């Protein structure tokens, strides 16, 4: 690997240059998509759109990336998405992978856990990586996309809705101009100025607790594990979380309680003794970043308002427990990108975008629920709530059942979009086509699995790519010729990628069959049989996968007509299957 000189992403400044609209005032084209906010969510959305062939204007009111300590835990699903958009490896190379963790009560370890207890996944449960690296890598990825125009120091101050476009007023160092777009993606953060301009609100609960974040740089022998203390001797009655980031930086999160003075607690005179109490008197360290925060669990009632789609913190905010903020926002971005591309390219009706809102509102509710539950465990709101919390912790060391109740944050997992209108439900089981079991039901994010392609190790997720794909669990030569022809025709018409997954390596007969098909095909060997196991596949089973790698539909036998119906449904077209679905 090439060692490139380290860039201090926190110090980078990005030059504003006059855009086409400013250079020639009469020139006001309607752009397909304007994304507001060059944070991790806006950047991901822009890159994903560009990959789907959509030109994007990305505006940001600032000329910098993230500074200081913000999101640091990037979960497996996020890494899978970064892989798909081309920058996952950099993140993983730089990040600190840490599946194991420990929970302590007072001065004793209660139990240890492993967040990804099974093998056969390309990526770990999560990595820790400072937000400025994530943004820096995403930005460099975006800069390589010729169809992304980045406009710094461009502040959106007004929005007007028109019949065939929305017009944004953008203020720059030179003045202001009108920026027109068919669709606007609001990735402008928890205080979303655009949301306020449109008179919309994000509602929910604010929690009466304060937390201190101290990022400290040190050379100390703590392992790369996630350690969570309840009521430790060095910080009685409160909780503390310690975990490692790259560059020998450690994140320490101290619960302070509601009565803490947020200004006073940020001063080094207060922070340093707290850190020293945890690390010991002999450890030398320096403070990289300190902040005191409170948090809210809120969301907008609807994430779509006409041509404006709200994503990330602009649409929903959660507590930090479980790392569900940035991770869920990245999933918003990828859910939206392929749908916008399909609509703009005329492959789907505008109504497909309603499913962005309904799917991600559902996911936001799941994240809010998990986040609120963690908060209730970490910050009990009543004497009895605290008594049960302490009882759980007291029992956990001895009894496995109580460990399952300890909630120091349920790490962000992607939602299975069970209620999505884009899903095609399973057919009724028959003796010849028994029901599927396992988690890969319609709406589920695809599980990874190790495979071989032409003898070389690969993974399932990158093989799925970012178009619609059909996984057929059979060797091509074992598939009836008429089925193959029908699938190939459908694949060609609908730009569907065909994956044949078989236990055995490809034979000359397989290769001959595939060469004869005029479609994008690949044959993969399920060397450890994990793909078939994870998808509960029998010979001939097949899965239709969306561009965001969620299961759309599945069958025990591939039938091109069924697949086409499911494909229409997954792209927001009315289909003839409504009655069957209501049953």
């Amino acid at each position: 690997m090439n060692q490139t000189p380290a860039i201090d992403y926190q110090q980078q400044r990005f030059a504003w240059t006059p855009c086409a609209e400013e250079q020639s005032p009469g020139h006001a084209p309607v752009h397909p998509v304007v994304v507001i906010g060059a944070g991790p969510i806006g950047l991901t959305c822009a890159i994903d759109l560009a990959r789907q062939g959509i030109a994007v204007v990305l505006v940001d009111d600032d000329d910098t990336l993230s500074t200081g300590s913000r999101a640091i835990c990037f979960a497996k699903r996020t890494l899978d998405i970064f892989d798909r958009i081309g920058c996952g490896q950099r993140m993983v190379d730089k990040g600190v992978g840490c599946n194991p963790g420990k929970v302590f009560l007072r001065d004793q370890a209660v139990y240890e856990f492993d967040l990804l207890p099974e093998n056969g996944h390309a990526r770990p449960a999560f990595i820790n990586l400072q937000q400025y690296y994530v943004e820096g890598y995403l930005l460099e990825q975006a800069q390589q996309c010729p169809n992304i125009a980045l406009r710094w120091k461009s502040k959106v101050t007004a929005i007007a809705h028109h019949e065939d476009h929305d017009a944004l007023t953008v203020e720059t160092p030179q003045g202001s101009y009108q920026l027109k777009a068919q669709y606007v993606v609001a990735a402008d953060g928890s205080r979303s100025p655009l949301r306020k301009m449109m008179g919309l609100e994000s509602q929910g609960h604010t929690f009466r607790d304060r937390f201190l974040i101290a990022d400290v740089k040190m050379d100390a022998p703590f392992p790369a594990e996630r350690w969570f203390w309840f009521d430790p001797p060095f910080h009685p009655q409160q909780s503390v979380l310690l975990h490692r980031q790259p560059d020998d930086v450690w994140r320490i999160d101290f619960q302070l309680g509601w009565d803490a003075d947020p200004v006073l607690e940020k001063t080094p005179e207060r922070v340093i003794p707290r850190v020293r109490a945890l690390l010991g008197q002999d450890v030398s360290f320096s403070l990289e970043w300190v902040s005191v925060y409170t948090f809210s669990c809120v969301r907008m009632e609807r994430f779509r308002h006409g041509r404006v789609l709200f994503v990330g913190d602009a649409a929903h905010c959660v507590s930090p427990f479980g790392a569900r903020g940035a991770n869920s926002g990245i999933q918003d971005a990828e859910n939206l990108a392929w749908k916008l591309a399909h609509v703009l390219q005329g492959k789907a009706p505008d109504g497909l975008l309603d499913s962005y809102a309904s799917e991600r509102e559902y996911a936001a509710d799941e994240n809010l629920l998990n986040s609120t539950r963690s908060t209730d465990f970490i910050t009990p709101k009543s004497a009895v709530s605290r008594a049960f919390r302490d009882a759980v912790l007291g029992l956990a060391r001895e009894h496995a059942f109580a460990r399952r109740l300890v909630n120091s944050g349920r790490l962000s997992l992607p939602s299975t979009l069970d209620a999505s209108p884009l899903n095609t439900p399973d057919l009724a089981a028959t003796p010849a086509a028994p029901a599927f079991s396992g988690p890969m039901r319609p709406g589920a994010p695809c599980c990874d699995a190790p495979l071989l392609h032409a003898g070389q190790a690969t993974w399932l997720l990158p093989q799925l790519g970012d178009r619609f794909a059909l996984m057929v669990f059979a060797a091509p030569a074992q598939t009836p010729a008429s089925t193959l022809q029908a699938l190939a025709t459908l694949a060609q018409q609908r730009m569907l990628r065909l994956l044949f997954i078989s236990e055995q390596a490809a034979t000359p007969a397989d290769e001959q069959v595939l060469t004869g098909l005029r479609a994008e095909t690949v044959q993969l060997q399920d060397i450890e049989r994990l793909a078939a196991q994870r998808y509960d596949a029998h010979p001939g089973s097949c899965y239709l996968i969306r561009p965001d790698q969620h299961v759309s539909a599945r069958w025990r036998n591939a039938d091109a007509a069924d697949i086409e119906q499911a494909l229409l449904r997954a792209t927001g077209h009315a289909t003839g299957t409504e009655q069957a679905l209501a049953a």
Partner: protein
Amino acid sequence: MNLNTAPNLSRPDDFYEALIDMHRGLDDDASQAVNARLILLLCNHIGGHDVLLEAMRSARAGVAPTRAEAA
């Protein structure tokens, strides 16, 4: 499965005495802690979510609210 509220204790008077004895030597806070541990142990033993919810509803139904619910 429904919550069984028919007599089911093999030795009811011995059980009751043991329950009270369990709290001997404890102040109210410590008793609260022991009760919480006991509830958690028993709930795990029962396991079924519906039965647990039914038991919680029955328990709560006998006690009127003593303060306004927080918003």
